[in-house]
């Protein structure tokens, strides 16, 4: 069944879009990431204009993070104070990111920026995850004890705040900066940024793993909501109909994903996610390195109009 998308101005097969929503939902349920990093490139691959893909992807992530955060909230796994610190940075960062997006779109460099960000971040994070999970699989017996109170330069920063749920007493600056940087990326890449935020929370901020996903989801809601609104105002690129189809598929997929996820060993899950992340990154890298079949291209509608 074909449906005409009012903003993307093209006709898509509802079932293909639903299936994509389900697929991304399953991944997000399995791995606890938003799945935006897969959804946005896949939408672009299916011919949705890049600006619409990025903005609509952000809109879809609002729904999946609301759904996810409620579950974590009931289990008491959301550090709201940390979430607020991250999201203040996130709102600022995503506003700058959207501005950058609008500017570079007019300059014709937005595809390059989106692809480069994907290649760099998916590549780096994929490798780190792969190495980490491979270690975990190989040395499963040896329990690595992560010390909670290693004092680094981060602990010497001013404006210390007590984050009770995270059992941390650190400066508010690192969460602000992390939130800011992830916010910029989230606006440019059309992702929630969970796949960057989660490692940053664990390794940079030193948060306990239990509250990481819930808190990350909490702040992602506001950052992606901000991106959705700003993209809508600046670029008119949010396709609400496409978002609804993706959301419908996504919530169903996320439900089953999280059920399957509890039956599979964590490190195998992380290893397969890592492989997936690297594959998406490599695919986009090839796009940038191989000579395109036509070096001339027509700018997407709306540019310099």
């Amino acid at each position: 069944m074909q449906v005409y998308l009012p903003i993307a101005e093209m006709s898509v097969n509802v079932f293909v879009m639903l299936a994509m929503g389900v697929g991304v939902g399953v991944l997000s349920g399995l791995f606890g990431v938003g799945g935006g990093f897969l959804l946005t490139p896949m939408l672009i691959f299916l011919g949705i204009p890049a600006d619409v893909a990025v903005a609509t992807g952000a809109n879809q992530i609002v729904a999946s993070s609301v759904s996810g955060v409620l579950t974590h909230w009931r289990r008491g796994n959301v550090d709201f104070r940390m979430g607020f610190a991250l999201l203040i940075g996130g709102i600022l960062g995503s506003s700058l990111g959207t501005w950058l997006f609008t500017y570079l779109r007019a300059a014709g460099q937005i595809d390059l920026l989106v692809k480069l960000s994907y290649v760099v971040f998916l590549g780096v994070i994929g490798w780190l995850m792969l190495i980490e999970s491979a270690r975990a699989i190989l040395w499963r017996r040896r329990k690595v004890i992560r010390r909670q109170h290693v004092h680094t330069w981060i602990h010497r920063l001013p404006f210390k705040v007590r984050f009770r749920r995270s059992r941390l007493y650190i400066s508010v600056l690192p969460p602000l900066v992390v939130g800011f940087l992830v916010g910029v990326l989230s606006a440019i890449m059309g992702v929630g940024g969970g796949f960057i935020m989660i490692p940053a929370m664990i390794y940079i901020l030193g948060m306990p793993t239990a509250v990481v996903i819930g808190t990350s989801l909490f702040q992602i809601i506001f950052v992606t909501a901000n991106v959705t609104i700003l993209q809508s105002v600046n670029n008119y690129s949010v396709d609400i109909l496409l978002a609804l189809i993706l959301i419908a598929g996504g919530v169903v997929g996320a439900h089953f994903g999280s059920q399957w996820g509890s039956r599979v060993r964590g490190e195998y899950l992380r290893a397969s996610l890592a492989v997936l992340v690297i594959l998406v990154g490599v695919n986009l890298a090839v796009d940038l390195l191989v000579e395109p079949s036509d070096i001339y291209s027509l700018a997407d509608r709306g540019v310099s109009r």
Partner: protein
Amino acid sequence: MNRPPILAPLLFLTWLLATQHPVQAQGVVADISESAVSISTGFLGTDLLLFGAIEPDTDVVVVVEGPPEVATVRRKDRVGGIWMNNDEIAFSDVPTFYAVLSNRPVDEFTSDVTREVYGIGVGDMTLKPLRLDDQKRGDLSVFRDALVRAKTFRGLYHKAERSVSIMWGRLFRTDLRIPVNAPVGSYWIRVFLFRDGQIVAAQTSVLGVDKVGLTAEIFDLAHRHSLAYGVLAVLVAAVAGWVANLAFRKH
């Protein structure tokens, strides 16, 4: 949508020609199967039937032009190993849609000058750069060709040299494909009759392509009240997420 500015002088010429041949007043009478195309949620593109009466022993050329836009063509170059957009030319008054339909190849019975003056033929359109200094560029035609190539690839530019059929020398008919990605606005349809390489009659009509129903409402809201639309999109998504969470919680 406004009348395309490049059409204005052409229309005047057409009118002049029509009035200079009063004996051929009947000339050409053409009509379309639909007076408007409505893009609704189920739109997949549509085929229109263009038909009419002509004078005997004439060739028929139908030129269809969508609303004009500024179109930017970019060239990628390898910069530091990466293929990136490195150069661009913006063209003004580019028809968003362009189709030329005829009963036989137009260059068999028209001169280059005629085609250029009347803008007949995808390759004969005069696409002008937006910036004057781009006018002198040596590679202008390469960019121009790339524009036509990209539009053709998207199904927006179209040339069908034997698609007009003439019956009993007095009637013509042809199918006009409006693709799914057709831009909204006014489409100018010009029907030319040629005899011995000269235009003997012409008729212009307008076809409206518009979004209707839900599609139109969403599009209007997104463009006219973009802030409210963005907030609405967020609220809808948040409620959907909340409902989904409640629905699956019970299991």
